[in-house]
């Protein structure tokens, strides 16, 4: 039972990541490949604040999300000038840089040794120890994220985002300052990804750079594409399936040394099948270009 709840918590954290990337990739059409970097900043910020300065994880979560947003501005800037493959490479590069910093700035992050003993969230003096309590917390954050992102995309603001995805030149021709919109989207997307990172850190209570490799960014990207770009429900489905499905491998009695690489192979295979059979994702309408 506890194991099942654990899987749901992890799914919830991935749903937040997927929703926030969907805003950038699915709705605005920006091919961002370094999404996990925002979660990395959020996770490390709130963990270091809690461990070194005794700051409450609640405040750390907010500060971490804001730091992630700052990084969003930095990563967002090239997206104003670059397009397509070049932009994908630039964001990929940023993802690698953030990973390298977390690994090599040993004074701050303890590098590959990671940060152990991160405190859990507490509520009126009680630590959120039981798994179900943490699941409730994550569910609340998932719902907040989903409602806010749904409101953003289902509005004149969101309409402009989609217009940028469809045809930037046309969007400019009717007076939309698309550079501004792209930056805002990065800031918002990074903010929620930062929250996801912080939720993860205070749940597992240990983080190290291996949780924030480029493979994780690609996994989140797959969840967006798999569920459906430009679809909120798609993000839920994509994250749930791609988190839960590989877990089933455990029940086939496979050792983790086999299951881990197999997970990536399954991801790859699923993506190939999906691109051939249903390029718009499971319930998306927008086709990957």
């Amino acid at each position, binding site marked *: 039972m506890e194991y099942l709840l654990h899987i749901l918590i992890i799914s919830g954290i991935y749903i937040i990541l997927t929703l926030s990337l969907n805003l950038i990739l699915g709705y605005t059409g920006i091919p961002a490949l370094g999404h996990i970097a925002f979660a990395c900043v959020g996770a490390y910020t709130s963990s270091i604040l809690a461990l070194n300065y005794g700051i409450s994880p609640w405040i750390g979560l907010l500060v971490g999300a804001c730091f992630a947003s700052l990084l969003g501005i930095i990563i967002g800037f090239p997206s104003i000038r670059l397009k397509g493959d070049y932009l994908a490479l630039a964001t990929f590069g940023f993802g690698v840089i953030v990973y390298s910093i977390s690994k090599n700035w040993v004074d701050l992050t303890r590098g590959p040794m990671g940060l152990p003993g991160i405190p859990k969230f507490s509520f009126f003096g009680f630590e959120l120890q039981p798994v179900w309590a943490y699941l409730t917390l994550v569910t609340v954050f998932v719902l907040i994220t989903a409602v806010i992102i749904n409101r*953003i995309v289902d*509005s*004149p*603001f969101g309409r402009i985002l989609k*217009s940028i995805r*469809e045809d930037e030149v046309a969007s400019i*021709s009717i007076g939309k*300052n698309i550079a501004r919109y792209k930056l805002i989207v990065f800031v918002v997307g990074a903010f929620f990804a930062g929250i996801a990172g912080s939720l993860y850190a205070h749940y597992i209570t240990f983080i190290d750079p291996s949780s924030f490799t480029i493979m994780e960014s690609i996994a989140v990207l797959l969840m967006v594409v798999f569920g459906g770009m430009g679809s909120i429900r798609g993000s839920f489905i994509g994250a749930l399936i791609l988190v839960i499905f590989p877990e089933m491998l455990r029940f086939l009695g496979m050792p983790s040394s086999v299951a881990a690489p197999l997970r990536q192979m399954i991801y790859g295979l699923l993506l190939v099948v999906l691109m051939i059979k249903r390029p718009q994702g499971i319930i998306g309408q927008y086709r990957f270009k």
Partner: protein
Amino acid sequence: MGILKVNNLVKHFDGIKAVDDLSFEVRKGAITALIGPNGSGKTTTFNLITGFSRPTLGKIQFQGTDITRLAPYEIFNRGMGRTFQNIRLFPQMTVLENILLGLKYQRGESLAAAIIRTSVMLREEEENTVRAMELLKTIGLEGKRNDLADSLSHGQRRLVEIARTLGTDSDLYLFDEPTAGVFPNTIPTLLSIIEDLKAKGKTILFIEHNMKIVMDISDNIIVLNNGKKIAEGPPSEILHNETVLDAYMGKRSRRAT
């Protein structure tokens, strides 16, 4: 009274002079046609005026202010709307959404308003939808409101693009070949849209290859050849201008006939 003044405009593309020392004025409230053979620099001139391309030299003034170095969206916000030769719609969005995007001054275009979902914003969105439906009616496509722009025919897409531009409520409209590739039975709709705009005191500058249309609706015609202005005047004058006929037909073939 010139709403738009173009002074000594030059645009080089890797040594080729696409626009060469071009100067003209567009009179407020008039319909001005920009004509010339293929490759004479008409669309380049449009791109320079609307800010999509930076001039090598020269100055462009719009409503009395210098807009030469402004970004396209800033030029748009000063009251200049345009369409494209190769129609630019948002293909995987509905026809209604395409039109709504053109409407100016939407509160919901700010992030905070979108998240809070203020009642003012929702009411404005309803009003805008009514306005967008009116625009769809003028082009006779109100039945297609929920179809994807992608699914429309070429002529319908041309109309939607023009309707989207109408919604911007600009002072000067630049139409790049509005009738190209459109069924002949749609052309009267297009022409009545342009004449309605003029009746409302708007200014129109358009590129067109169909000479009958140019002669019928223009107040003033500017003729380009090789990036240079070779003639300018009302239709009656241009029709009998030797230089223009030479540019269009070629000297030799005219002598032969």
